[in-house]
């Protein structure tokens, strides 16, 4: 009953005209960046982070969340029609989705992708509503040791799942921690690594770092190659899948939804892992696995449902524990912090309007996305023809303005350009920026919790192992750190490794 009252309260917030507008802007931009290859939700959210400053916390966060789950919808369009994934979570959709399009079944592929996404997105929201308050009430009992160990686990999982060598990903995570510690020490107020620059006293801003690493670096990488597009030119007529399509897709949608939701909750996991796992599961369960790769609708339905369910599930650790499970959620945490809010166990009780408003807006956003992605599919196809030689300079200009407007400080523009150049060379040398960004956000929190738990335990390091949740997290992190040394597990890691930047 309480939940229903809260949901009603949430809809009261989400249905305010300004919030509806922000929700629409969010899902529209999300679909747009999902459709456009080369710009992922991370780049878009980092570009728009400064915009959240102009409105209320609800509006800003509703918009940011909309970009994330909106991009999951939009990403499938390019995968199916162009064979280029709009964002990383839609890589798997290319395999069977584009084959279906080539066989003249682009409509049902787009249709099942949108309907599957809608079902999964809605399920994830219901689960979020039911699970989040319960988990938050448990999380109140968490001490600094648990928080520290959970963050360590989150970082290790992300480095485990990052493409390329694990030492490189771990090195990136350490650099992220160091960058996060620049500025005044929160306990002793001693300046650290500021090199005498007043601009660094408050630390390096999240916005210029992320915009540089994901926005500018992405453009630099994309200019290396002329982007070729093989757009399916036939008119997309019938979007509704037929009876047979529904029959074979029902199972994959259901399984993908549940699998995706749980993988989304895990720290370091997320939509990309979920879509790969769902594809592998469907192929394994299928009586005719040889159809996969040749236009099997299950290969579209499962992963597309899984990545949307994961996008919903990823909100749980952020909202209940204050720990972002992936880089996208780290950006969302940034949006919360910009507004002086701290997500965590007390958020739901202290800011019910905000929490339930965001949840309710996601319902509305999912309906908006269904409308945006089905009847308006022709518009997105036209957008795929937008020339990149005009788009890239515009992105650079917007990033510069976005960074400047977030702080009114030219120094941040320099920081962004520097991180853009560093990010480009990092990517060229095989160093992924995702662990760096997550560690950059988690670094100060990790340090704070580590120091607090050491002070509370009077320097007893066993406190991290003796407390069950903390101990379990550290053991799991250790297993993941050792795992790549075993050849069979190394192979598995390479199979599920993800490119967060895409």
């Amino acid at each position: 009953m309480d939940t229903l009252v809260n949901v009603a309260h949430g809809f009261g917030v989400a249905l305010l005209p300004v919030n509806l507008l922000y929700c629409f802007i969010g899902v529209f931009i999300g679909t747009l960046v999902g459709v456009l290859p080369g710009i992922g939700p991370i780049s878009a959210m980092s570009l728009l982070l400064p915009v959240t400053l102009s409105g209320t916390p609800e509006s800003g966060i509703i918009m940011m969340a909309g970009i994330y789950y909106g991009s999951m919808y939009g990403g499938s369009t390019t995968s199916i029609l162009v064979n280029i994934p709009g964002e990383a979570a839609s890589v798997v959709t290319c395999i069977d989705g584009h084959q279906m399009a080539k066989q003249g079944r682009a409509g049902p592929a787009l249709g099942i992708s949108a309907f599957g996404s809608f079902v999964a997105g809605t399920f994830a929201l219901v689960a979020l509503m039911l699970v989040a308050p319960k988990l938050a009430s448990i999380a109140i009992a968490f001490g600094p040791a648990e928080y520290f160990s959970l963050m360590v686990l989150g970082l290790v999982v992300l480095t485990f799942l990052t493409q390329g060598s694990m030492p490189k990903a771990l090195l990136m995570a350490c650099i992220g921690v160091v960058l996060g510690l620049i500025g005044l020490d929160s306990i002793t107020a001693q300046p650290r690594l500021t090199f005498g620059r007043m601009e660094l006293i408050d630390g390096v801003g999240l916005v210029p770092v992320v915009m540089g690493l994901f926005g500018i670096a992405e453009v630099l990488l994309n200019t290396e190659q002329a982007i070729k597009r093989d757009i399916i030119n036939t008119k997309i007529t019938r979007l509704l899948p037929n009876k047979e399509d529904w029959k074979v897709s029902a199972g994959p949608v259901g399984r993908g939804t549940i699998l995706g939701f749980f993988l989304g909750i895990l720290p370091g996991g997320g939509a990309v892992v979920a879509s790969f796992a769902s594809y592998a599961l469907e192929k394994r369960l299928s009586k005719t696995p040889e159809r996969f790769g040749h236009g099997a609708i299950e290969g579209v339905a499962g992963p597309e449902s899984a990545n949307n369910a994961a996008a919903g599930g990823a909100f749980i650790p952020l909202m209940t524990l204050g720990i972002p499970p992936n880089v996208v959620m780290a950006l969302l945490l940034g949006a919360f912090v910009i507004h002086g809010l701290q997500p965590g166990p007390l958020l739901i009780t202290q800011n019910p309007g905000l929490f339930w408003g965001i949840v309710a807006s996601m319902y509305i956003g999912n309906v908006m996305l269904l409308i945006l992605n089905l009847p308006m599919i022709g518009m997105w196809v036209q957008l795929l023809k937008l020339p990149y030689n005009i788009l890239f300079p515009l992105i650079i200009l917007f990033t510069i303005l976005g960074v400047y407007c977030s702080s009114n400080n030219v120094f941040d523009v320099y920081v962004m350009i520097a991180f853009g150049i560093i990010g480009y060379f990092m990517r060229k040398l095989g160093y992924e920026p995702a662990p760096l960004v997550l560690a950059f956000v988690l670094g100060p929190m990790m340090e704070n919790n580590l120091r607090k738990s050491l002070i509370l335990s009077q320097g007893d390091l066993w406190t991290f192992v003796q407390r069950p949740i903390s101990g379990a997290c550290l053991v799991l992190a250790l297993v993941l750190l050792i795992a790549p040394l075993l050849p069979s597990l190394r192979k598995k890691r390479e199979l599920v490794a993800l490119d967060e930047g895409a």
Partner: protein
Amino acid sequence: MNDPTNVKLRLSNSELWGGLIGLALGGFVIWSGLRLKLGTINDPGSGYVLFYTGILMCVFAAAIVVSAITEGGPTLAARWENVRWSKPLLLIACLTAFSFALEPLGFLLSSIPVMLLLLRLIDPVRWALAIPIAVLVPSGMWWVLKRLLLIQLPSGLFGIG
């Protein structure tokens, strides 16, 4: 067997350079941690986490260096093979020039030429389209930010913008 793009103990080994840069950074972080004082385990100081993170950085960077020497790695040239490397280089040059010009020249005088350069350098947009975009988009953004949102953009020595 002898792949010229994959080398072991050579200065052109890109993996080796990545590891060495990591080692240098790790060393610097350890030194910074020590300078800030470690404190004790009961009461960790400002440099405590930095120091241990620096040690971890050195460990991971050393692992990269060892792997680069034992397993080899692609040469620096191989990383930029078969790509239009001049395009990002030109873009970096433009961005660097822009960062130097932004404060003295102001937003409008620095962003219009940079936009024009970018439009002509990446995949040349014809002049008839590039010039209006380069002039109208920054001017439009400037107008929206300055007049509608009242955000002060750098106006430079000439006070334009």
